[in-house]
């Protein structure tokens, strides 16, 4: 790498190289077409079809009937608090870690642990939850036998609180991963400059750090919201979708053992989820652009 420190000769053959770059992208675009485009078409087309004809009836059903609206409400409520909570806790953890020495043990442990735990979800996570906090889980049993306190009477892992806190398990590390680079982008010079001009630490945070970090924070929170909104396997494994969120309702409609004509409603719900995630992504993209202004 040291050779690279000599000034690089300006290479401006950009115009010639563009077609080649696109050629390199081609397999990826093809991949996207097959694994994103085609399923998207199947879902949206199916949602707009009944008995082989174009119809909006599937959408009018999912937007008017309580059995489809309540899962949407459940999803939004669950996703809101399981993204806001971890966003705040994750920011605090990331800030604590970034404040420490760059190559410190704490920092290395937290960042590699975050990398692992952020993707530890679904059935394995649910099993960990059962084994630790279930009716016969080790923690529950410990509380009962050693401390004489019956945790199971007050905390049910398949309640909304139980499932939601389970989401924290992968949401907090995800937030740490997103926020650490943003926090690292806060230059010490800015604080020194502010202090030199008479700012207190508090006013530095309020007038410099917070505004610079806000777009990154909001963007990360939006990702967390999307992650909670689309979480399915954890919910299914923990309580078998007895709390019905949208992905669960889609599963009921797509994989039904008792109703023969439910698939179009599942596809309509799928389209609804794509729309919600699409809106979240547009916001994310817009906020990210603002974040990019300072933290680059």
């Amino acid at each position, binding site marked *: *790498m040291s050779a*690279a*420190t000599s000034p*690089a000769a300006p290479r401006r053959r950009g115009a010639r190289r563009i077609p080649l*770059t696109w*050629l*390199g*992208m*081609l*397999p*990826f675009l*093809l*991949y996207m077409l*097959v694994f994103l485009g085609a399923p998207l078409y199947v879902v949206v087309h199916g949602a707009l079809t009944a008995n082989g004809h174009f119809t909006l009836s599937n959408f009018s059903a999912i937007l008017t*009937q*309580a*059995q*489809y*609206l*309540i*899962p949407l409400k459940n999803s939004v409520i669950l996703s809101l608090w399981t993204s806001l909570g971890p966003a705040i806790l994750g920011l605090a953890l990331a800030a604590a870690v970034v404040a420490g020495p760059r190559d410190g043990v704490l920092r290395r442990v937290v960042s590699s642990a975050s990398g692992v735990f952020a993707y530890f979800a679904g059935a394995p996570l649910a099993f960990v939850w*059962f*084994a630790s906090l*279930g*009716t*016969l889980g080790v923690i529950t049993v410990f509380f009962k036998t050693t401390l004489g306190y019956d945790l199971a009477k007050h905390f*049910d892992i*398949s*309640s909304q609180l139980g499932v939601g806190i389970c989401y924290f398990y992968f949401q907090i590390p995800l937030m740490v991963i997103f926020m650490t680079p943003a926090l690292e982008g806060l230059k010490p010079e800015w604080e020194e400059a502010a202090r030199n001009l008479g700012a207190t630490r508090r006013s530095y945070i309020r007038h410099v750090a917070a505004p610079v970090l806000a777009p990154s924070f909001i963007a990360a929170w939006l990702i967390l919201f999307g992650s909670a909104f689309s979480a399915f396997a954890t919910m*299914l494994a923990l*309580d*078998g*979708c*007895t*709390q*019905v969120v949208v992905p*669960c*309702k889609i*599963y*009921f409609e*797509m*994989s*039904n*053992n*008792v*109703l*023969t*004509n*439910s*698939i179009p409603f599942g596809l309509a719900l799928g389209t609804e989820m794509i729309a919600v995630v699409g809106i979240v992504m547009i916001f994310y993209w817009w906020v990210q652009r603002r974040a990019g202004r300072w933290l680059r």
Partner: protein
Amino acid sequence: MSNIDCRAHTRFGRRTIRLYTVVMAAVGAAVAFGALGGSPSSAATGHSASVNWATVTSVKAGGGMAALVAAAKKEGKLNTITLPDNWANYGTQIKEFKAKYGITVNDAIPEGSSAQEIQAIQSGRGSSTAPDVVDVGESFAVADANLFAPYKVATWSDIPAGNKAANGDWYNDYGGYVSFGCDLAVVPSCPTTWAGLEGSAYKNAVALNGVPGQAGAATGAVFAAAINNGGSLTNAQPGLTFFSTLKSDGNFNSTDCDSSSVIEAGQCPIIINWDFLNVAGAWGLPSTAKWKVVVPTGTPLGEFYAQAISKTAPDPAAARLWEEFLYSTTGQNNFLKGFARPVEQAALVKNGTIDKAAYKALPLVPGKPVLPTPAQTTAAATLIAAGWSS
């Protein structure tokens, strides 16, 4: 310093992009080759020169059992779908069928659903891996009868008239009744009536297998609760009311009890489920488990599953041989050994060919059972699906 860092970073980035381009190109090429090489070969039609088994409607019409066995052996395989080993003893059925005829059985998605079985027929047309035979909820058999090839097994007359399509599109294979399975390591005793579930000893105890409106067993549980709490085969609403009371009393347990591991973790004190799926053996519990199954007193609700042969079966002779096997005395007794009630049970009892030990091991049915028609099942399921999620 930071400037130099920055440039180094950019160069590294560019190199990464180039590497990425190469890798993506390689992956793309691999995908393209895979798509070319892996396209499904057109399925062998598998019929002998003289007989087209795909349209044969009985073993007699096809030239007898020996001809069917020969044709099936020539096909060499059978594609089934969604037959878990511990479901109505399908593990044994498959093992014995393989041993008897030397035909490979490929079971796709063992944990799937009836809807997925139907989809697999529709999307698998022309593929050698499409399902040959299905075992679906009766309402699916009725709704999708146009996908099936009519066939009447040799013992057709032993199947009660109410348990089959008159033209042979589909036929019930086995069934059972809504029951309570109790983990006596957690609850002191097993309730014997629906009202008993509301007892104070069963706090946070009453669980289901799956979700009402999606899973057959859980939907049956709500339907049976309706029938035994002022409802009827045409009115499932009281079932929803019964469960909302169980929830508000704190007796309902929201765990999805669908495997032995959740039961052994003590999460499922009482499971309301079809009896043939609810016995210790069906759950795969150890013989030491304190597990008891009771069909509650009152009006037991029964349900039968249905067999059908796909019209587009890639192995039409093996499919027909499989049906002959399931409806033979051996096949029907195998269902019985899996605690399911075979559809030809009455005939087996009459002929004295029933497996007496297995017959005795079934839970008692106290009361006169009812069997809903497919239309009643669908109407009840629609109401239950809408009511449960809202």
